[in-house]
């Protein structure tokens, strides 16, 4: 075990996967000699050579398009998109191609690949270095969407994603890159996709969250506990395919639900959680299903701390559904 930051765990996971499987390769903008703008790919070119870790021209369309062709022809590409905000030039390749290749060819061609990309706010990145796009991708049939919130999960889920037979969007909460640390096993291991992680047990209010919102929710839950409200905090980890049974069970267990994410609320991922509950277990609900989210505006810069859900806002929602 080593005590690593989340970004170190990602780096460690990449190395473990690349040592394990010679068909894996990493590419994207600045991932080579520079090691990535966040240093996620540091040391890879040195260890694995330029053929297995290299820089590409500035085209996300080309990065993802080439990855699909590699994946369809026997390699295991791990593509980096420098910020999720810059994934949109490749949206067509992801949505029209990677997501639909298996279906439209009856499995004759497939795209087992991972797209790693940092997402979310908290680094004073303004409109274009802060966005959270999970809802776009979770709404697209054929893609898997994974978001870790701890160093342990970051490494284990990343290796699982690389091993997965389907295209996986692996979203890394950049606000946590260096702000969380944790025990990470050495070498190769996986954390199963489509499993939830119970962060904290409690009988009063269920809080669903993922990524950089997990520590925010943990703090809010700790404060709530001081006034006797015990929260069941669930880290979704894999947003698609989601462990829906697990979500419904957790919702039923308290009858009071809050969902937290950074992305805009309208048609955000939290809406699906609410809808799923309202469709399947509404009779267990004892309070409105609350969402604490980013606002339905672009992401501001100077005022980002107002935009991002913080402990205050989460706690307020917990108290509200608890006292309802």
């Amino acid at each position, binding site marked *: 075990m080593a005590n690593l930051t989340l970004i170190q765990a990602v780096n460690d996971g990449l190395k473990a996967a690349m040592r394990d499987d010679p068909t894996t*390769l990493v590419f994207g903008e600045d991932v080579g000699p520079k090691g990535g703008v966040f240093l996620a790919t540091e040391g890879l070119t040195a260890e694995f050579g330029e*053929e*297995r870790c290299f820089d*590409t*021209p500035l*085209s996300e*369309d*080309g990065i*993802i*398009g*080439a*990855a*699909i*062709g*590699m*994946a*369809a*022809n*026997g*390699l295991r*590409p791990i593509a980096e998109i420098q910020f999720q905000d810059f994934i949109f*030039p490749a949206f*067509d*390749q992801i949505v*029209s*191609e990677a997501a*639909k*290749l*298996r*279906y*439209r*060819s*009856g*499995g*004759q*061609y*497939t795209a087992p690949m991972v797209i790693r990309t940092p997402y979310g706010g908290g680094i004073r990145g303004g409109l274009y270095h802060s966005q959270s796009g999970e809802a776009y991708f979770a709404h697209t*049939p*054929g893609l*898997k969407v994974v978001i870790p919130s701890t160093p342990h999960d970051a490494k284990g889920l990343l290796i699982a994603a690389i091993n997965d*037979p*389907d295209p996986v969007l692996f979203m890394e909460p950049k606000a946590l890159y260096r702000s969380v640390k944790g025990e990470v096993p050495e070498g190769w291991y996986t954390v199963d996709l*489509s499993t939830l992680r119970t962060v904290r047990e409690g009988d009063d209010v269920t809080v669903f969250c993922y990524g950089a919102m997990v520590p925010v929710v943990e703090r809010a839950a700790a404060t709530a506990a001081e006034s006797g409200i015990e929260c069941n905090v669930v880290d979704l980890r894999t947003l698609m*395919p*989601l*462990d*829906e*049974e697990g979500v419904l069970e957790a919702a039923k267990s308290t009858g009071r639900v809050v969902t937290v994410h950074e992305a805009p609320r309208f048609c955000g991922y939290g809406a699906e959680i609410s809808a799923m509950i309202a469709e399947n277990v509404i009779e267990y609900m004892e309070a409105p299903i609350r969402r604490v989210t980013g606002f339905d505006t672009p992401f501001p810069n100077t005022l980002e701390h107002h935009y991002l859900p913080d402990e205050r806002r989460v706690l307020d929602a917990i108290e509200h559904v608890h006292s309802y």
Partner: protein
Amino acid sequence: MDPNEAYSLIDADGQPRSKFTCALADDELKDCFRSMLAVRSFDDICMKLQRGGRIGFSIPNRGVEATQVGAAAALRDGDHIFPSYRDFGMALHKGVPPVEMFHNMFGNGRDAAQGRQMPVHFSFVDPVHFFSISSPIGTHLPHAVGAAHAFKVRREPHVALASFGDGGTSSNGFHSGLNFAAVMKVPVVFLCQNNGWAISCPSSQQTGSESYAIKAKAYGMPGIKVDGNDLLAVHEVMSEALERARAGEGPTLIEAETYRMGGHSTSDDPSKYVPKDVLDKWEALDPVKRLRGYLEFRGLWTQEWEDELVASLLAEHAAAAKEAEAEAPPGLETIFSDVFESLPDHLRKQGEAVFDLARRKGDAAAGEGAFPL
């Protein structure tokens, strides 16, 4: 070679323009001719099936047979084709059984893709890697680059061929694909079939450049323009480009100048925008006629042989179409399979609900909508 001048070996009647050595042996030449007739036969049957309301859609291929067959003939075993929807001539030449293609045209349960795609959106892995066609234009160029990179890192002597239209040169994928290919120096050949039109948009409104081949300059790769109705010329420039690729010298862009003699698709009425005199000009340059002329010049052609070929192709294709039409549609479960390798819970439940509803309320009725209306 000047990328703005089309390279050609035989004239409108198939007579050699000057002395040249033809890389194709007699039987290969005859085989190519057979494939061109096969394209025409397949095409005709599809048009009739569509007019008769028995399939929903097709894409005419008359006029562009020499480009497709000539290019396919230059490929070797192990090379991969990344085609667009108009490229079924390549599949036919590479020996894909017509009945498999008709399974797709009818979208039946024996279609490799379970009738999920529109007609002409083929996908084969055997006897040739003919990559799954998608409708969005130009997306497959970077796929070919990625596949070529896999050949390169595995030190395999194969090449990826990406084929697309003049309209495709405006797409994001053209730019990223050619750029990545040149920077990565991978074994890929880009074949732009300039057939004069992108639906109703003429080349003059597609680009301001002098030719499509010259676009290669923007990426630092050779750009060759070839007479796309001259199978020999297409075969020769393709072969050279493939050899360069195999030798590790990187990608080539080839523009094959040809002409779409039919509409864009069965939904299109080209009389609204195609000038009659241009059509006449190209009719005189008909690629089948030209290869026929050359075969005759080489003493390889008789009318009788061609008549027999046409008859046997018609019989084969008609039988294949009949067989495909008689097949059952895909099972309901195919709506949910192949989204992921294994069926996740939410799709299992959605599928169960379909069967449950069918039991309780009867089956869904097919709608009346038809492609583009």
